């Protein structure tokens, strides 16, 4: 029995620590710990609800749109603001651009190096690499000369002796299985994706002024004016610019990202039976297609339990709770309780070892994440959950079609989706579906311009005198990493209580009061570990969830805030 600590888990957002027990070449138990806490929800209390999106947005600079969206939706729900159609379309475009860019960056820059050995790429034959690349895609950057240039560039980099971000990694590890040519192709695309992500995200600059941390959100709509007869508004020129950027994005996803995922996955099919996890999936659904109170959602909501893909259950949000049995917080009613977010309380109370420490007290409390549960069960959220629910629901039809194609290409059945590799594939499928969809929303925006519908904001609810004196609201969103909810209580025009349950809290949370592991912990059990001092395989399974730890940690508590205010004053 070997006890492994991976801290920091790198190539993620935020601070994550994994401890695992390895026996007989496999993980037989695991603990997931988030080691950073800021308290943004405490900071939100007492503030103007119209400012909340900007504070909440800073929960994360990677998924830089998602908390702003959930926040404005929660406040709109509370005060009764109804964003006009243009605002819905602009939000759909901003959210989908986020998903597409984020998933590509995750695959190439955060996850690929778990599967791709850069040192092996240096031994590749450029002509054979070109043959491989041309066999999987008609992407034009695929000549022997091109790959020769990439290989020489990497060789030169290595020969200079300063390996920078590539130093000290697990190169040569026996779990790397790609031939040199596939490694070289992937390295070339790692570099291309680095350029691509910067270009594609200009969609956010057009619609949000800048990225990261777009600045065009408003409670009740959007701040980006729409007027085809103005130079200072979204007009025909910006429509053309969006169309071009989306076309370029679609090109890269269709001809590089999806083919690469299939090519790399074909060498790692055994990872379709590793990392299954809790087997329960939660999706709130998103991308409203109309402006009614209960709009049709492009990606449907639903629950799948125990890997049963014969049916999808509707989501009952009253069944969402959080627990703190193994989290560094206290509940006034006892740490064994499970509380709905509207009744949520979070009193940070660190009881772990004093830093610097070697080991956490794993039988006690060991994380700054709480343990969210649905109907008492741990749930996985994210692209795999969304693609499963869409697949079983039969809509959008493109999901079923692409899932079928991917499974056929790899020669595996639907059960293969419940795995580390399944998460990688689902993320690529979702990217393809969303980048294909974006053009529809640009067209709809153009149609509204043609009808001279320039409304971007529900100004009737902008001034606080038009708000209810005491109100509650909840806002939901499908962020790149999964189901996201914000809950807000507003009284006398100020925030009384604010709570988020975030994708990485669902996925990375610790055990609950019944001892049920969270999704990361559960997925790690059974993961092979060839060399305990180089736990590459643990990174594969953890990275397949795309951890975003700063998102996961949150806090709410009135009593604590009063204490803090006294101290500050």
């Amino acid at each position, binding site marked *: 029995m070997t006890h492994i600590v*991976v801290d*920091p888990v*790198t*190539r*993620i*957002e*935020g*601070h994550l620590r994994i401890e695992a027990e390895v026996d007989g070449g496999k993980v037989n138990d695991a603990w997931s710990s988030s080691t*950073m*806490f*800021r*308290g*943004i929800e405490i*900071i939100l209390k007492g*503030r*103007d609800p*119209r*400012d909340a999106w900007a504070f909440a947005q*800073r929960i*994360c*600079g990677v998924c830089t749109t998602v908390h702003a969206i959930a926040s404005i939706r929660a406040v709109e729900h509370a005060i009764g603001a109804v964003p006009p159609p243009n605002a819905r379309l602009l939000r759909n475009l901003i959210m989908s651009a986020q998903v597409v860019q984020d998933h590509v*960056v995750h695959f190439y820059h955060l996850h690929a190096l778990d599967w791709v050995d850069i040192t092996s790429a240096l031994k590749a034959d450029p002509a054979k690499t070109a043959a491989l690349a041309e066999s999987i895609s008609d992407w034009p950057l695929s000549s022997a000369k091109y790959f020769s240039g990439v290989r020489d*560039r990497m060789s030169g*980099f290595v020969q*200079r002796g300063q390996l*920078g*971000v*590539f*130093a*000290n990694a697990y190169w040569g590890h026996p779990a790397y299985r790609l031939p040199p040519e596939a490694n070289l192709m992937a390295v070339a695309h790692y570099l291309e994706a680095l*350029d691509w*992500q910067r270009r594609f*995200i*200009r969609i*956010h*600059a057009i619609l949000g*002024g*800048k*990225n990261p941390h777009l600045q065009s*959100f408003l409670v009740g709509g959007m701040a*980006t*004016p*729409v007027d085809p007869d103005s130079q*200072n*508004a979204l007009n025909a020129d910006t429509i053309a610019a969006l169309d071009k950027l989306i076309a370029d994005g679609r090109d890269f996803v269709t001809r590089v990202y999806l083919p690469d995922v299939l090519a790399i996955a074909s060498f790692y099919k055994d990872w379709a039976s590793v990392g299954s996890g809790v087997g329960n999936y939660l999706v709130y659904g998103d991308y409203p297609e109309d402006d009614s109170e209960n709009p049709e959602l492009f990606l449907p909501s639903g629950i799948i339990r125990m890997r049963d893909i014969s049916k999808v259950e509707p989501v009952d949000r009253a069944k969402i709770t959080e627990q703190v049995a193994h989290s560094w917080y206290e509940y006034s009613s006892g740490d064994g309780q499970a509380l709905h977010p509207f009744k949520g309380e979070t009193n940070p109370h660190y009881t*772990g070892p*004093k*830093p*610097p*420490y070697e080991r956490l007290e794993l039988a006690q409390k060991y994380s700054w994440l709480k343990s969210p549960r649905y109907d008492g069960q741990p749930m996985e959220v994210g692209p795999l959950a969304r693609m499963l629910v869409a697949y079983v629901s039969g809509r959008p039809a493109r999901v079923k079609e692409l899932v079928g194609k991917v499974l056929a290409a790899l020669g595996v059945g639907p059960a293969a989706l419940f795995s580390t590799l399944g998460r990688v594939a689902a993320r690529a499928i979702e990217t393809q579906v969303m980048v294909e969809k974006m053009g529809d929303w640009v067209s709809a925006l153009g149609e509204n311009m043609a009808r001279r519908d*320039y*409304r971007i*904001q529900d100004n009737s609810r902008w001034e606080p005198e038009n708000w209810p004196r005491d109100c509650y609201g909840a806002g939901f969103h499908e962020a790149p990493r999964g189901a996201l909810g914000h809950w807000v209580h507003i009284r006398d025009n100020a925030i009384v209580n604010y709570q988020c349950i975030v994708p990485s809290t669902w996925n990375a949370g610790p055990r609950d009061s019944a001892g049920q592991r969270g999704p990361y912990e559960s997925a790690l059990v059974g993961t092979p570990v060839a060399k305990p*001092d*180089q736990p590459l395989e643990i990174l594969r399974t953890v990275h397949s969830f795309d951890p975003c730890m*700063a998102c996961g940690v949150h806090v709410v508590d009135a009593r604590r*805030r009063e204490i*803090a205010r006294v101290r*500050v*004053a």
Partner: protein
Amino acid sequence: MARYQNWLLDELKSRGVSRREFLGFCAKMAAILALPSSAAGAIAKAVATADKPVLVWLEFQDCAGNTESFLRASHPTVADLILDSISLNYHETLMAAAGQQAESALAKTVADYSGKYIALVEGAIPTGADGAYCTIAGKSALQTVREVCAGAAATIAVGTCAAFGGIPAASPNPTGAVSVGDAVPGLRNLVNMPACPMNAENITAFLVYYMTLKQLPPLDRYRRPLFAYGKVIHDNCERRAYFDAGQYVEAWGDEAHRHGACLYKMGCKGPATSQNCPVVRWNEGTNWPIGCGHPCIGCAEPNFWDRMTPFYQRLPNIPGFGVGWNLDRIGLSAAALVAAASLAHGIGEIVRHHTGKKPSDSDGPSGDEK
């Protein structure tokens, strides 16, 4: 040094970048840095012959927004190369190594390049709970930032959290979060590059400056480089003419809003904020917040989460404000009054962090050391 002599120009060539394009890039850098155009030649020489400087990038109470911004550096091919021309020996979000291998890369850099590496710090540093609010490899952020920055040739606090405490330090500062400058007292060669996030063009410009001139750029009293923070947004704003003419947006989506009128009445903090957003803009010069119709929120200023909120409340109407008044002289007092108007967020906090001055002091954050 000789073996590095031409690698950068070779690399440019291998990436399809002509010498002419490279010199164009250097001219752009000279412009951002407000150097005379003759400096472009000196920049080209310095960049092309430099050894790769060693950097470590630490993340603490952060959101990785500055890391993401770093990845958006524009003028793609050459900027990408400038990033390649740096040896980034530690960066949790980007590095291939994890766990003990990641930590040993950091320890080795600190030992082998003592006094020579540049430390970039993203995120605030919590001082509460004995450091348990942020640990990496079991060590507190406070311990790591002190150990690493002590041996650095220069420390760059990227983003408002590292520079000024930022959002974790916003009232009531639940974790006792502080800036790098406050976490490491007496730190030499500290440069603050705030904004939420910092603009990628500014960090690239800083690195070129440092490599070219072998010194830190002139700083204002908040240790911000003048080339990026030396002017008030309002003074360079493309909508300034509307302000001077008294044409304001009155409601979201109204005709004035659609035609790009001044956002002052919607709460714009451009008159109280120093940064080069209107000039450099964002994401390859595509746009900037005011350009997309939303007010500036003052994100490059100390304690803006308390001083500049509520964001949609206009700066107070001070006599003379708007007709040729030197706004950078009154910026701070104007912002402080906004904060004072919303009592919920603590005058005490403002006073405590505002370098010992009272909020009514009338010198703006960029009004000195020009």
